[in-house]
C-alpha cells in the first residue's frame, strides 16, 4: 500500500513515521512530479492551512489532488488538513478542496494558550488521546457526514465517504489506532 503525504509544510514527517510503523509505504508530495506513481491513500497533515492552500495552488498540486479526492481516493486529514477539505470556512470566503460537507471554524479555541490535551471516544475506535493545537472544530456537519467524535459538545472528527477529517493530531500522540483504522478502510475498499 502506497500513501502520499502532502509535504509542502507542517507535521508530515510525524504521519510518515506512524504509517511506516504500521507497514505502509509513504511518499512525500512537494510538487507535481511526485504524483506520477501509484497512490492508494492521501494524508493532509497539520500545519498552517493558509500556507498549504497557497503552495498547493502555486505548485500545481491543487487540481490533480482535488480530482483524486472527488473520485474517491481515501484521505486522512488532520487539523489544517481538515480545513483544506472543508466545504466552508466560518467567517472566511476562502476555501480549498471543499470536498467535505462541513463548516469548520479556524483557530476555534483561540491562540496557543487555548491549545489543550484530552481523551475522548472516537466511534469505531474507542477512547483516544487528542492533541488540539490552535485547532479548528466543525461547526456544522452536512447530511451524509458521520460525526465520529465530539469534545465539549463540539464536533472534532467526521467521516464522509472516502474522507476522514480530524480537528486534532493523532500523528503526535504515539497512538497508532487512528492511522490503522485509516489503512484498514483502504484495504476494505480495495477488496469491495
Amino acid at each position, binding site marked *: 500500500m502506497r500513501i502520499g503525504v502532502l509535504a509542502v509544510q507542517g507535521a508530515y514527517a510525524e504521519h510518515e513515521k506512524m504509517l511506516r510503523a504500521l507497514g505502509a509505504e509513504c511518499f512525500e508530495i*512537494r510538487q507535481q512530479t511526485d504524483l506520477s506513481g501509484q497512490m492508494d491513500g492521501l494524508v493532509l497533515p*497539520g*500545519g498552517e492551512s493558509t500556507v498549504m492552500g497557497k*503552495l498547493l495552488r502555486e505548485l500545481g498540486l491543487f487540481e490533480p489532488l482535488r480530482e483524486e479526492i472527488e473520485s474517491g481516493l481515501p484521505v486522512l486529514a488532520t487539523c489544517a488538513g481538515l480545513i483544506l477539505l472543508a466545504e466552508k470556512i466560518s467567517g472566511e470566503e476562502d476555501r480549498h478542496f471543499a470536498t467535505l460537507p462541513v463548516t469548520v471554524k479556524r483557530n476555534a479555541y483561540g*491562540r*496557543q494558550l487555548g*491549545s*489543550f*490535551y484530552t481523551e475522548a471516544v472516537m466511534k469505531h475506535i474507542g477512547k483516544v488521546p487528542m*492533541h488540539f493545537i490552535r485547532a479548528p472544530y466543525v461547526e456544522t456537519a452536512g447530511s451524509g457526514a458521520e460525526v465520529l467524535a465530539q469534545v465539549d459538545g463540539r464536533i472534532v472528527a467526521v467521516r464522509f465517504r472516502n474522507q476522514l477529517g480530524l480537528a486534532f493530531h493523532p500523528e503526535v500522540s504515539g497512538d497508532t489506532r487512528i492511522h490503522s483504522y485509516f489503512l484498514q478502510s483502504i484495504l476494505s475498499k480495495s477488496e469491495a
Partner: protein
Amino acid sequence: MENQREKSRYELNKELAQMLKGGVIMDVTTPEQARIAQEAGACAVMALERIPADIRAAGGVSRMSDPAMIRGIQEAVSIPVMAKCRIGHFAEAQILEAIEIDYIDESEVLSPADDVYHIDKTQFKVPFVCGARDLGEALRRIEEGASMIRTKGEPGTGDVIQAVRHMRQMNREIARIRSMREDELFECAKELQVSYDLVKYVHENGRLPVVNFAAGGVATPADAALMMQLGAEGVFVGSGIFKSGDPQKRAAAIVKAVTNYKDAKLLAELSENLGEAMVGINEQEIALLMAERGK
C-alpha cells in the same frame, strides 16, 4: 479534567513548533507587513518594532515592542504571532503572555536584561523559542523550558555565514554524542552543563528534543535552501524580506524554496528577478556580535 488538560502544556508547546516545520517565520513591523507575509505564505510572523538591521543602525537599548503594536498584528493575521523579549527579562515575557502571544522569542537581538540568568521558561504557559550557537546552548535553553530552538546566526546582517557555522556546529556535536559509549554520556553532560537525560535523548535520537529552525542572516531562496539542506526544520527570515527591493516576491520565493529545498531547477526559477537583496554587512564589518549574547 482541567488538570489533565494543563499537564501536557509543554508537550503542546513543542507540538506547535512541529506544526511550523517546513515553513518560514517572517519579521514584520506593521499589520500591513504582517498581511503581506501571510499572503506570501509565512507560517508565522514575528512582531517587532524594528527589524534587526535597523536595530543595528539605531544602536541604543532595544526592548520588547509596544503591546498595542503587537495586538494590531495579532488582529491582522490568522497565523501564529510571535514576539521578542530581552534575555532574562521575565517581566517582559509576562506581559507578552498576558496578551496571549503564540510564541515568545527570548532573543539576543534585543539588549539583554540579565547577563547571568535566562528566563525560567517552565513558569510560563506560552511557549518560548531561543537562539543557540551550539548544542550546549541549545540544551541549556531546553532545560530552562524552551520548546523550540533556532540557530542564532547573526541577525540583521544578511550574511548567512554564522547561521551555517552554528548549524554545522550543532550537527557535529549531535553526531559526536550519537557515537559515544553510554558510559561517556555522564561526562558529556558535565561538559555541556546540562542534565544527563537531555544528553541521553540526543544520544538515542540523534537530534534535539525540540524543533530546530535556522535564523540570522538568511536573505535569499538559496540561503534558505542551504540551511534546510544542512538540517534546519524551517527558517526565520528577519531583515532579509522587508529590507529588500520586492518584499512580497522575495517572501513567496523563500517559502517555496523551503518546501522544495533540494530541487535546484525550481530554486533557479525562484531566484530569478527578485529585485535587490538587502545590502547586508559582512561579519568582519560589524561592531556588535548579537550571537555572543546569552550563553
